[in-house]
Each structure stands twice: as C-alpha cells, then as structure tokens.
C-alpha cells in the first residue's frame, strides 16, 4: 500500500481526531464515574490554588503595610517652632529619606478628635499633652529592615529628638510567616500533584483492563502500541483539563462566598479591600498544570500495560 506524504500527514491528523473523539465518547458513555474522577482531580487541584489565592491576598495586604516601616520622631516639647522646621528641612534633604512630615501638637490633637472616640478632648485637657512629631519615611533603597534600623539608630541620637519609635517588628514577623506559608503551599502542591497523577494513572489502568480484548484485536491487525495508546493519552489530557477547569470554578465559587465577610472585616479597618482573584496568567498556568499531570499520569500508567498485552 503506497501512500503519498500529504496523505500520510492527513491520515496522521485524522488519527488524532479519532483518538480525541474516542476518548470523549468513552467519557460520555460513563458519565458518573468520569464525573467523579474529574471532581476528585478538580478538588485536588483547587486546594493548593485556594492557598495560593489566600497567600497572594495576605502578601498584598502586608505590602500595604510597608508604610508602617516609618520612624516616628517625638521632639522635645520645649523645642521652638523654627527649630522644628530646621530639623524638618534637614531631614527632607537626606538621601535615605523619601519624605518627612511635621505634625504639630495641635494638628495631632485634631487628628485624635477626628478619629471619633476622643471627641471633646480639648475641653477635657487643660493643655495639649502632645509633643511635636516628625514622621520619617525611609527612601526605597533604604527600606530594607536592616537599613531602616541603622537610620533609626542615627535619628534617635539627634539632640532635638526626645524619643523615637520604629514600628516594623510585626511586619517582619508577618513576612516570615508568609514565607513559611509559601513553603507549606509548595509542599501541598507537590503532594496534590502526585495525587492527581495517581488518580489519573489508576483510572486509565482500569480503562486499559476493560478494553483488553479490543486492544488484542487491534494488535492482531497490526496496530502499533503508539496507536493503541493515543486515545488513553487523550483521556488523561482531558481528565487534567476538565479537572483544572473544575478547580478554577471551585476557587471562583469560594471567592464569591468569602467576598462579603472580607469586605466586612476590611470595613473594621476603614479600608475598601477587594479580594485579588486569579489573573489570566494564573489561569493558564493551572490549565497547563492539569494538562501536564493528565498526560504524564496517562503515559506512565498506560505505556507498559499496553506493551504487555499480546493477542493469544
């Protein structure tokens, strides 16, 4: 049988189409078991994705706290206003300081009153107990915890400064926690990826067993292992693809569910926080992960099994 190159390429693609249809037909023929398998894969993939979304939001929120990396300089109460201004000008000129703000005692009192609970403060207090305050924001290149610490040490020793406060310890702790959680999520991802591999591998192992007779017939009429394997590999790819789509759906549903509680929580902190979902890059990555796991799981379990089947 002589075939031209074009015919052979044509036939190659139609072979693949047939394998795709055959694997989808098998899915439809067993909707319940197929659906359950896809659901298991979807849940297994959704768990690390949910952790990822959670962490992503936490890092985003904690990123918003970067400005907490500020140094508060409480000046001597007796310091004259022109000296306060001089210090402010000096600080603003420094290269390791992004900007500095002076909050006079009366401004500070006003701010307190605006926060609500301290309404009639001015009437209660005979005179303003607040010292003048300068908020110093380190420049970006000096915003590493260590350099902020150095800056803090230096500013603390200025003669005009009564006391200084640096509020970054908890930011560091949060940072460390997020780092740890990221590692844990990576571990989860590996374990659950193995789960998906095993589920797909085992499902297809059973599928091969069920089709043993068909495979024998195919071998008898000269089918190569590759030809016989093809529909199973496509089944694996579809399991992975549909599982990934289910996972994305589950994550979406979860985000909708927790949207309100998060908004409520954020309202306590007077912020309008919107949950960060998955962006297109994440979605593509998850779908690719599903496809890779599906194809790999199928190939690993089916290859040897099909090679071992021989007609009798």
């Amino acid at each position, binding site marked *: 049988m002589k075939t031209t190159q074009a015919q052979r390429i044509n036939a190659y693609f139609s072979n693949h189409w047939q394998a795709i249809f055959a694997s989808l037909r098998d899915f439809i023929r067993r909707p319940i078991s197929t659906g359950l398998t896809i659901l298991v894969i979807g849940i297994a993939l959704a768990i690390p994705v949910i952790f990822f979304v959670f962490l992503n939001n936490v890092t985003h929120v904690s990123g918003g706290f970067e400005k907490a990396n500020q140094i508060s300089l409480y000046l001597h109460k007796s310091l004259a206003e022109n000296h306060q201004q001089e210090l402010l000008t000096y600080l603003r000129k420094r290269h390791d300081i992004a900007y500095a703000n002076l909050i006079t005692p009366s401004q500070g009192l006003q701010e307190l009153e605006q926060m609500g609970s301290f309404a009639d403060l001015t009437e209660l207090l005979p005179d303003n107990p607040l010292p003048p305050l300068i908020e110093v924001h380190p420049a970006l290149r000096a915003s590493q915890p260590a350099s902020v610490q150095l800056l803090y040490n230096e500013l603390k020793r200025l003669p005009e400064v009564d006391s200084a406060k640096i509020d970054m310890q908890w930011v560091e702790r949060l940072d460390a926690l997020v780092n740890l959680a990221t590692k844990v999520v990576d571990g989860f991802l590996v374990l659950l990826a193995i789960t998906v591999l095993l589920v797909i591998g085992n499902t297809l192992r059973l599928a091969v067993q069920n089709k043993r007779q068909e495979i024998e017939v195919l071998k008898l*009429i000269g089918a190569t292992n590759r030809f016989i394997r093809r529909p199973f590999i496509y089944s694996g790819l579809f399991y992975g693809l549909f599982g990934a789509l289910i996972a994305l759906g589950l994550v979406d549903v979860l985000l909708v569910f927790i949207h309100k509680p998060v908004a409520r929580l954020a309202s306590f902190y007077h912020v309008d926080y919107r949950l960060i979902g998955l962006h297109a890059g994440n979605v593509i990555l998850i779908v690719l992960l599903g496809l890779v796991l599906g194809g790999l799981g199928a190939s690993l379990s089916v290859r040897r099994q099909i090679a071992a089947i021989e007609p009798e």
Partner: protein
Amino acid sequence: MAAGEMAFLTGHSGAGKSTLLKLIALIERPSMGQLIVNDYDIKQVKKRQVPEFRRQIGVIFQAPHLLQERTVFDNVALPLVIAGVSHQAIAKRVRAALDMVGLLAKEKCYPLQLSGGEQQRVGIARAVVHKPNLLLADEPTGNLDPVLSAEIMRLFEQLNEVGVTVLVATHDLGLIAGLRHRILTLKRGCML
C-alpha cells in the same frame, strides 16, 4: 507454499493447526525450526517490527473478534486507519470489501445486530480490506452451518483468484473434500 496458492491445513484437534497459524501471524514465537513468511524469517522479526509485519497478512478466527462498540464500517476500516490511509480511500475500499462479502447494506449496524455468519463475513472483510498478500483462517466455519460454511469457502476461493495466498485450517474434511486445493495434514505437530 507458493505465493498465490490456496491450501487447507487439516489434522486432529491438538495436531498443531492453530499453533502453525499463530506462528505465522507472530502471535507465538517458534522455539526451534525455521519459518519464512513473505520473505521474512520469523525468527529475525524484531518486536517493534511486528505491527508492520502483521499489516501484510490477514487473519480470521473461529470467533470474528469484532469491536462491539463500533459499526461494521468502522470495524472493517480499522486496518486502513492503522496503516494511515486517507479518509476517501478508506471509504472506497471498505465499501468494496463489504460489497464482496455481501454486507454493504449493513455498514451502519453494530456487530451484535448481525447473525453469526454475518459477523464472520465482517471479520473476513476486515482481514482483506488492506489487500494482504497472505490470508490465514483458523477454523473460520467452526460456528457456522454447512450452507454458510460453503459460502465462506467460496469467498476464500474468490480472493485466491485475485492473487491472495490463502491458508485455511479446518478439521471439517467434508467441507473441503469437494474443493480442488492442496491439503496439508498435520499429525502431532509434524507435516504428513
């Protein structure tokens, strides 16, 4: 056996008819001796050459070994699909093969909708659709009544007339007595 010949292989059960056919189709491997099929020395054929080798022969069994989930047309088309023949060519040749066995009208049926004789004929169509130069049949009429059996034998003779080498294993001596072809008899694994 010469190319283009038709012969019957007979002998008692257990004499080795099936084994010889299985050896030829590379389903079993010889432990000793020499077997040359289509210019291939069976012992020299490597594992990954087996599919290629099998595509050059057609095999028919006592049971038709059809895929129940596919139509008659798809069953017959399988050897061509495997060989990578184009769509149009497949349709043409499958219909020609079905026409030859008289089942063109049933191409859309599933094997279970057909009678035993019809299924066997589908199996024959599948075995010859890719125009093999050697056709092996192992008790192809074992499950069929005499009328159907004679019909099947006529089919084999037709194929032989267009140049296919045909080797039919059967213990039904009555069936082949009236046909003028060489009869090879096996007894305890030895050719008589």
